[in-house]
């Protein structure tokens, strides 16, 4: 059974990102908005516990964030 603490990997679709920075606010270790092009990208290994990943996916207004793979 997959639990909420299991690590998953997240990614940003740069076409869809509208640059609101909600991801960066919620998970500053994982996402960063580029100030010039105003597009978010993953700055870490992209790993987050599943329940936190679900929250950013849910809150991203551009529907630009997805869980690309489960780890462990």
């Amino acid at each position, binding site marked *: 059974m997959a639990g909420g603490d299991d690590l998953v990997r997240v990614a940003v679709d740069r076409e869809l990102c*509208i*640059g*609101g920075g909600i991801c*960066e606010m919620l998970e500053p270790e994982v996402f960063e*908005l580029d100030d010039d*092009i105003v*597009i978010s990208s993953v700055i870490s290994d992209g790993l987050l516990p599943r329940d936190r990943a679900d929250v950013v996916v849910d809150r991203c*207004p*551009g*529907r630009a964030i997805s869980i690309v793979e489960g780890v462990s």
Partner: protein
Amino acid sequence: MAATSAAVVDTPNVTEPSLYLEGIPHDRFTQLRAIPGLAWHPYEDGGFWAVTRHAEVRYVSRTPEQFSSAIGHTNLWDLEADALEARRSLIDTDAPDHTRLRRLVAGAFTPKNIRRWEETVRAITIELLDEFAAQGGGDWVEMVAAPLPIQVILNMLGVPVEDADYLVELSNYLVEGTGDAQSIPPDAFGNTTELRLLPFNSPASHALFEYGEGMRQQRQDDPQDDLVSHLVQAESDDERMSRSEYRNMFHLLVFAGNETTRTAISHGALALAANPDEWQRVLDDPSMIESAAEEILRWATPVMHMRRTVTADTELAGTHIAKGDKVVMWYASANRDEAVFEDAFRFDVGRFDAGRPNSDHFAFGGGGPHLCLGAFLARLEVTVLLEEMAKRSICLEQTSEPVRARSNFVHGVLSVGMQLRTAQ
């Protein structure tokens, strides 16, 4: 639509503007939420699908490829094609235009960058509150709720202080244009454009366009560290923004945050005055301020709906909807949906977890790409206001009935008397 014709008969009317003089007709929305599927609501010569439950508002908002913002209009009525083109702003676009335009301004409004305006917001708030206290109270809308947001946005745009009064005046005329009474003639401010081609059918829009054009020329020669200079830079590169997009963006930025934030602050005052025990909870534990601000936004729902247009035949909530149909997301209803908000008709300052910054209420829209650009700015303004009131142990007491806007779109309060009482 045939299968749902039974519902047509029973659909309670929620668009009659005069209903809103008494407040949001919540009993009617509660009825609508209980109708299975979507309710067809007659409007003018046609009608729209009323989306009133939280789950479906969210779905429509987050499925822009099926529910377009660029077709027809995002208000209840359609605009003629030439008027829509002339008036089209960020709000009335779909990707990829929306993404391109939104990114031009998004950077200034991220949670991180909005925090840089905190001291400005606080200074303006303190000045307004002190003046309100010195006068022993008065019209809360005129003295606090209206000036706070407009002064903040003019600061961000870089409008010189000496012009602020003029832009406030224009903004007030635009507010009139959202209702059905205009107090200025069509040729006011030297306007020669047909009114239907101007946002809010208002000659004040012409004046605002002219002002934006003047600023554009100035900032082109002498760029500053402000939002207009940033836009002008993008406009000089036609790929990024056209001249028409620039002027509609300038107009939107001046206007979008004003009536909305003033409405939130007005209903916030009403709710706190009507629920002194809830405000006392905040005074006793200021860590609740963030949650209280979210509850005020949910409670107020300043923008009561937005419309989308269906791009291809599909189904929503088990109801068949056809290409070209209008779909209206009633945020005012979703924000009272008992399926999501326990005891939804109770004003509860502790409803939202502290520190959960992007809550489940739909005051800023249903969470799709058009999610309010100014959401974190508006939150900052409401939060700082509550902080400064709490610091002074200020309690509000209502001294007159609110005069409400005759509008099914903005939950506006035109005036309401308040006085200050210091907590025991």
